[in-house]
Protein backbone atom coordinates (compact mmCIF):
# COMPACT_ATOMS: atom_id res chain seq x y z
CA UNK A 1 0.00 0.00 0.00
CA UNK A 2 0.86 3.65 -0.15
CA UNK A 3 2.25 3.56 3.42
CA UNK A 4 5.30 1.74 2.08
CA UNK A 5 6.40 4.95 0.41
CA UNK A 6 6.42 7.06 3.58
CA UNK A 7 10.24 6.69 4.02
CA UNK A 8 10.76 7.95 0.45
CA UNK A 9 8.50 10.94 1.08
CA UNK A 10 10.45 11.62 4.27
CA UNK A 11 13.78 11.57 2.38
CA UNK A 12 12.41 13.90 -0.32
CA UNK A 13 10.91 16.22 2.30
CA UNK A 14 14.07 16.34 4.43
CA UNK A 15 16.33 16.95 1.43
CA UNK A 16 14.14 19.78 0.09
CA UNK A 17 13.73 21.46 3.50
CA UNK A 18 17.39 20.99 4.46
CA UNK A 19 18.83 22.35 1.21
CA UNK A 20 16.49 25.35 1.29
CA UNK A 21 17.28 26.02 4.97
CA UNK A 22 21.04 25.92 4.36
CA UNK A 23 20.88 28.33 1.42
CA UNK A 24 18.42 30.64 3.19
CA UNK A 25 20.41 30.73 6.45
CA UNK A 26 23.69 31.53 4.70
CA UNK A 27 21.89 34.35 2.87
CA UNK A 28 20.33 35.61 6.12
CA UNK A 29 23.19 35.30 8.63
CA UNK A 30 26.35 35.33 6.51
CA UNK A 31 28.33 38.57 6.14
CA UNK A 32 28.01 40.09 2.69
CA UNK A 33 30.75 42.51 1.66
CA UNK A 34 30.88 42.12 -2.11
CA UNK A 35 33.51 43.78 -4.28
CA UNK A 36 34.25 43.46 -7.98
CA UNK A 37 36.99 40.86 -7.40
CA UNK A 38 34.64 38.61 -5.39
CA UNK A 39 31.80 38.94 -7.87
CA UNK A 40 33.92 38.05 -10.91
CA UNK A 41 33.65 34.55 -12.37
CA UNK A 42 35.80 32.03 -10.53
CA UNK A 43 38.04 30.06 -12.84
CA UNK A 44 40.62 28.26 -10.68
CA UNK A 45 42.31 31.52 -9.75
CA UNK A 46 42.93 32.55 -13.37
CA UNK A 47 41.46 35.51 -15.17
CA UNK A 48 38.32 34.27 -16.97
CA UNK A 49 38.83 33.90 -20.74
CA UNK A 50 36.22 33.53 -23.46
CA UNK A 51 32.46 33.39 -23.27
CA UNK A 52 30.34 30.79 -21.51
CA UNK A 53 28.23 30.13 -24.60
CA UNK A 54 30.95 28.07 -26.26
CA UNK A 55 29.66 25.45 -28.64
CA UNK A 56 30.03 22.02 -27.14
CA UNK A 57 31.42 19.12 -29.18
CA UNK A 58 28.87 16.61 -30.43
CA UNK A 59 31.05 13.85 -28.91
CA UNK A 60 29.39 14.55 -25.57
CA UNK A 61 26.05 13.82 -27.18
CA UNK A 62 27.31 10.40 -28.24
CA UNK A 63 28.39 9.73 -24.66
CA UNK A 64 24.93 10.72 -23.42
CA UNK A 65 23.29 8.45 -26.01
CA UNK A 66 25.53 5.56 -24.95
CA UNK A 67 24.58 6.23 -21.34
CA UNK A 68 20.83 6.16 -22.09
CA UNK A 69 21.03 2.99 -24.20
CA UNK A 70 22.88 1.08 -21.50
CA UNK A 71 20.67 2.63 -18.82
CA UNK A 72 17.66 1.10 -20.59
CA UNK A 73 19.54 -2.19 -20.95
CA UNK A 74 20.07 -2.32 -17.16
CA UNK A 75 16.37 -1.60 -16.63
CA UNK A 76 15.44 -4.65 -18.70
CA UNK A 77 18.04 -6.85 -17.03
CA UNK A 78 16.63 -6.03 -13.60
CA UNK A 79 13.14 -7.67 -13.88
CA UNK A 80 14.80 -10.65 -15.57
CA UNK A 81 17.23 -10.89 -12.66
CA UNK A 82 14.60 -10.89 -9.90
CA UNK A 83 12.48 -13.46 -11.77
CA UNK A 84 15.36 -15.64 -12.99
CA UNK A 85 15.17 -18.34 -10.30
CA UNK A 86 11.51 -18.98 -11.06
CA UNK A 87 12.13 -19.00 -14.82
CA UNK A 88 15.03 -21.40 -14.33
CA UNK A 89 12.71 -23.76 -12.50
CA UNK A 90 10.08 -23.56 -15.24
CA UNK A 91 12.19 -23.67 -18.40
CA UNK A 92 15.56 -24.95 -17.29
CA UNK A 93 18.73 -23.48 -18.76
CA UNK A 94 16.88 -22.16 -21.84
CA UNK A 95 15.65 -19.32 -19.64
CA UNK A 96 19.04 -17.73 -20.31
CA UNK A 97 18.60 -17.63 -24.11
CA UNK A 98 16.41 -14.50 -24.58
CA UNK A 99 18.58 -12.42 -22.29
CA UNK A 100 21.80 -13.59 -23.99
CA UNK A 101 20.36 -12.64 -27.41
CA UNK A 102 19.31 -9.25 -26.03
CA UNK A 103 22.75 -8.59 -24.55
CA UNK A 104 24.60 -9.81 -27.67
CA UNK A 105 22.52 -7.47 -29.87
CA UNK A 106 23.45 -4.55 -27.64
CA UNK A 107 27.10 -5.57 -27.49
CA UNK A 108 27.11 -5.51 -31.31
CA UNK A 109 26.13 -1.85 -31.06
CA UNK A 110 28.86 -1.27 -28.51
CA UNK A 111 31.41 -2.96 -30.81
CA UNK A 112 30.22 -0.80 -33.72
CA UNK A 113 30.72 2.39 -31.73
CA UNK A 114 34.09 1.13 -30.50
CA UNK A 115 35.30 0.24 -34.01
CA UNK A 116 34.08 3.58 -35.35
CA UNK A 117 36.26 5.26 -32.75
CA UNK A 118 33.31 6.82 -30.95
CA UNK A 119 34.92 6.21 -27.58
CA UNK A 120 38.23 7.88 -28.50
CA UNK A 121 38.74 11.27 -26.91
CA UNK A 122 40.76 13.02 -29.60
Amino acid at each position, binding site marked *: *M*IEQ*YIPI*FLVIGVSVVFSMAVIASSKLFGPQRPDSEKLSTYESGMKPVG*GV*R*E*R*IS*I*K*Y*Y*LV*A*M*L*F*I*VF*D*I*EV*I*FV*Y*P*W*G*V*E*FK*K*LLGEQGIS*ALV*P*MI*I*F*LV*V*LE*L*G*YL*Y*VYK*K*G*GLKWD
Partner: protein
Amino acid sequence: MNIYDIVFYLFAAITLASAFVVVTARNIIYSAFSLLFTFFGIAGLYVLLGADFIAVVQLMVYVGGILVLILFGVMLTNKITSVQIKTGTLQVIPAILGTALMAGVLIKIFTGTNWHSQMAQYPTKTTAYALGHILLTDYVLIFELLGILLLIALIGAATIARKEEKAS
Protein backbone atom coordinates in the same frame (compact mmCIF):
# COMPACT_ATOMS: atom_id res chain seq x y z
CA MET B 1 -10.22 13.25 1.38
CA ASN B 2 -7.67 10.70 2.51
CA ILE B 3 -3.87 10.65 2.35
CA TYR B 4 -4.02 9.10 -1.13
CA ASP B 5 -5.96 12.07 -2.48
CA ILE B 6 -3.66 14.60 -0.83
CA VAL B 7 -0.53 12.95 -2.28
CA PHE B 8 -2.20 12.69 -5.68
CA TYR B 9 -3.10 16.37 -5.77
CA LEU B 10 0.41 17.28 -4.62
CA PHE B 11 2.05 15.37 -7.48
CA ALA B 12 -0.57 16.51 -9.99
CA ALA B 13 0.09 20.12 -8.96
CA ILE B 14 3.87 19.66 -9.33
CA THR B 15 3.40 18.09 -12.78
CA LEU B 16 0.96 20.69 -14.09
CA ALA B 17 2.76 23.73 -12.67
CA SER B 18 6.14 22.67 -14.04
CA ALA B 19 4.63 21.63 -17.39
CA PHE B 20 3.10 25.11 -17.59
CA VAL B 21 6.55 26.63 -17.02
CA VAL B 22 7.99 24.33 -19.73
CA VAL B 23 5.68 25.76 -22.39
CA THR B 24 5.61 29.38 -21.22
CA ALA B 25 9.24 30.01 -20.19
CA ARG B 26 10.92 32.46 -22.56
CA ASN B 27 14.38 30.99 -22.03
CA ILE B 28 14.87 27.45 -23.31
CA ILE B 29 17.14 26.47 -20.42
CA TYR B 30 14.37 27.26 -17.90
CA SER B 31 12.05 25.00 -19.91
CA ALA B 32 14.61 22.19 -19.81
CA PHE B 33 15.08 22.40 -16.05
CA SER B 34 11.35 22.73 -15.44
CA LEU B 35 10.90 19.49 -17.37
CA LEU B 36 12.80 17.79 -14.52
CA PHE B 37 9.92 18.52 -12.13
CA THR B 38 7.36 17.37 -14.70
CA PHE B 39 9.13 14.01 -15.01
CA PHE B 40 9.42 13.78 -11.24
CA GLY B 41 5.71 14.50 -10.73
CA ILE B 42 4.79 11.85 -13.29
CA ALA B 43 6.98 9.34 -11.43
CA GLY B 44 4.94 10.14 -8.31
CA LEU B 45 1.68 9.54 -10.21
CA TYR B 46 3.00 6.15 -11.39
CA VAL B 47 3.66 5.22 -7.76
CA LEU B 48 0.08 6.15 -6.86
CA LEU B 49 -1.20 3.93 -9.67
CA GLY B 50 0.70 0.99 -8.20
CA ALA B 51 3.25 0.87 -11.02
CA ASP B 52 6.35 1.02 -8.85
CA PHE B 53 8.74 -0.38 -11.45
CA ILE B 54 7.58 2.10 -14.08
CA ALA B 55 8.07 4.88 -11.52
CA VAL B 56 11.71 3.85 -10.97
CA VAL B 57 12.21 3.58 -14.74
CA GLN B 58 10.73 7.06 -15.12
CA LEU B 59 13.24 8.42 -12.63
CA MET B 60 16.21 6.52 -14.06
CA VAL B 61 15.58 7.01 -17.78
CA TYR B 62 13.74 10.32 -17.98
CA VAL B 63 15.16 12.28 -15.06
CA GLY B 64 18.59 10.62 -15.24
CA GLY B 65 18.99 10.16 -18.99
CA ILE B 66 16.58 11.94 -21.31
CA LEU B 67 16.90 15.20 -19.42
CA VAL B 68 20.70 15.06 -19.70
CA LEU B 69 20.24 14.49 -23.43
CA ILE B 70 17.89 17.49 -23.66
CA LEU B 71 20.35 19.68 -21.77
CA PHE B 72 23.12 18.53 -24.12
CA GLY B 73 20.81 19.41 -27.00
CA VAL B 74 20.36 22.90 -25.54
CA MET B 75 24.11 23.28 -25.06
CA LEU B 76 24.82 22.08 -28.59
CA THR B 77 22.44 24.59 -30.14
CA ASN B 78 22.84 27.54 -27.78
CA LYS B 79 25.91 28.82 -29.64
CA ILE B 80 24.27 31.71 -31.49
CA THR B 81 24.96 34.66 -29.23
CA SER B 82 23.38 37.30 -31.44
CA VAL B 83 20.04 35.47 -31.78
CA GLN B 84 18.35 34.48 -28.52
CA ILE B 85 16.64 31.11 -28.69
CA LYS B 86 13.20 31.79 -27.30
CA THR B 87 9.76 30.34 -27.64
CA GLY B 88 7.24 32.35 -29.57
CA THR B 89 3.67 32.04 -30.79
CA LEU B 90 3.76 30.65 -34.31
CA GLN B 91 1.30 28.63 -36.41
CA VAL B 92 -1.83 29.51 -34.43
CA ILE B 93 -4.39 27.59 -36.49
CA PRO B 94 -2.51 24.25 -36.73
CA ALA B 95 -1.75 24.55 -33.00
CA ILE B 96 -5.44 25.04 -32.16
CA LEU B 97 -6.40 22.07 -34.37
CA GLY B 98 -3.73 19.87 -32.81
CA THR B 99 -4.57 20.75 -29.23
CA ALA B 100 -8.33 20.41 -29.89
CA LEU B 101 -7.77 16.91 -31.27
CA MET B 102 -5.58 16.00 -28.33
CA ALA B 103 -8.10 17.48 -25.86
CA GLY B 104 -10.88 15.47 -27.51
CA VAL B 105 -8.95 12.22 -27.12
CA LEU B 106 -8.06 13.04 -23.51
CA ILE B 107 -11.64 13.97 -22.59
CA LYS B 108 -12.87 10.73 -24.19
CA ILE B 109 -10.40 8.73 -22.10
CA PHE B 110 -11.14 10.80 -19.00
CA THR B 111 -14.90 10.20 -19.15
CA GLY B 112 -14.59 6.56 -20.21
CA THR B 113 -12.21 5.42 -17.46
CA ASN B 114 -13.27 3.81 -14.21
CA TRP B 115 -11.16 5.90 -11.83
CA HIS B 116 -11.91 3.99 -8.62
CA SER B 117 -10.50 0.63 -9.62
CA GLN B 118 -6.87 1.03 -8.65
CA MET B 119 -7.25 1.46 -4.88
CA ALA B 120 -8.64 -2.02 -4.27
CA GLN B 121 -5.99 -3.85 -6.29
CA TYR B 122 -2.96 -1.91 -5.09
CA PRO B 123 -0.10 -4.44 -5.24
CA THR B 124 1.62 -5.42 -2.02
CA LYS B 125 4.87 -6.55 -3.64
CA THR B 126 6.91 -5.04 -6.42
CA THR B 127 5.65 -5.43 -9.98
CA ALA B 128 9.18 -6.29 -11.21
CA TYR B 129 8.52 -10.03 -10.74
CA ALA B 130 5.43 -10.09 -12.91
CA LEU B 131 7.08 -7.84 -15.49
CA GLY B 132 10.17 -10.03 -15.67
CA HIS B 133 8.01 -13.09 -16.09
CA ILE B 134 5.85 -11.90 -18.98
CA LEU B 135 8.79 -10.15 -20.64
CA LEU B 136 10.63 -13.47 -21.00
CA THR B 137 7.67 -15.71 -21.75
CA ASP B 138 4.72 -14.08 -23.57
CA TYR B 139 6.44 -10.95 -24.85
CA VAL B 140 9.87 -12.35 -25.62
CA LEU B 141 9.75 -11.28 -29.28
CA ILE B 142 9.00 -7.70 -28.27
CA PHE B 143 11.86 -7.91 -25.81
CA GLU B 144 14.32 -8.92 -28.56
CA LEU B 145 12.93 -6.30 -30.95
CA LEU B 146 13.58 -3.75 -28.23
CA GLY B 147 17.22 -4.78 -28.19
CA ILE B 148 17.38 -4.17 -31.94
CA LEU B 149 15.69 -0.77 -31.48
CA LEU B 150 18.34 0.21 -28.95
CA LEU B 151 21.01 -1.04 -31.38
CA ILE B 152 19.59 1.23 -34.10
CA ALA B 153 19.65 4.19 -31.70
CA LEU B 154 23.27 3.45 -30.86
CA ILE B 155 24.36 3.15 -34.50
CA GLY B 156 22.44 6.30 -35.41
CA ALA B 157 24.12 8.29 -32.63
CA ALA B 158 27.56 6.97 -33.61
CA THR B 159 27.00 7.82 -37.29
CA ILE B 160 25.82 11.37 -36.59
CA ALA B 161 28.60 12.09 -34.13
CA ARG B 162 31.34 10.86 -36.50
CA LYS B 163 29.99 12.81 -39.47
CA GLU B 164 30.44 16.05 -37.57
CA GLU B 165 34.06 15.17 -36.88
CA LYS B 166 34.97 14.61 -40.55
CA ALA B 167 33.47 17.97 -41.49
CA SER B 168 35.50 19.91 -38.93
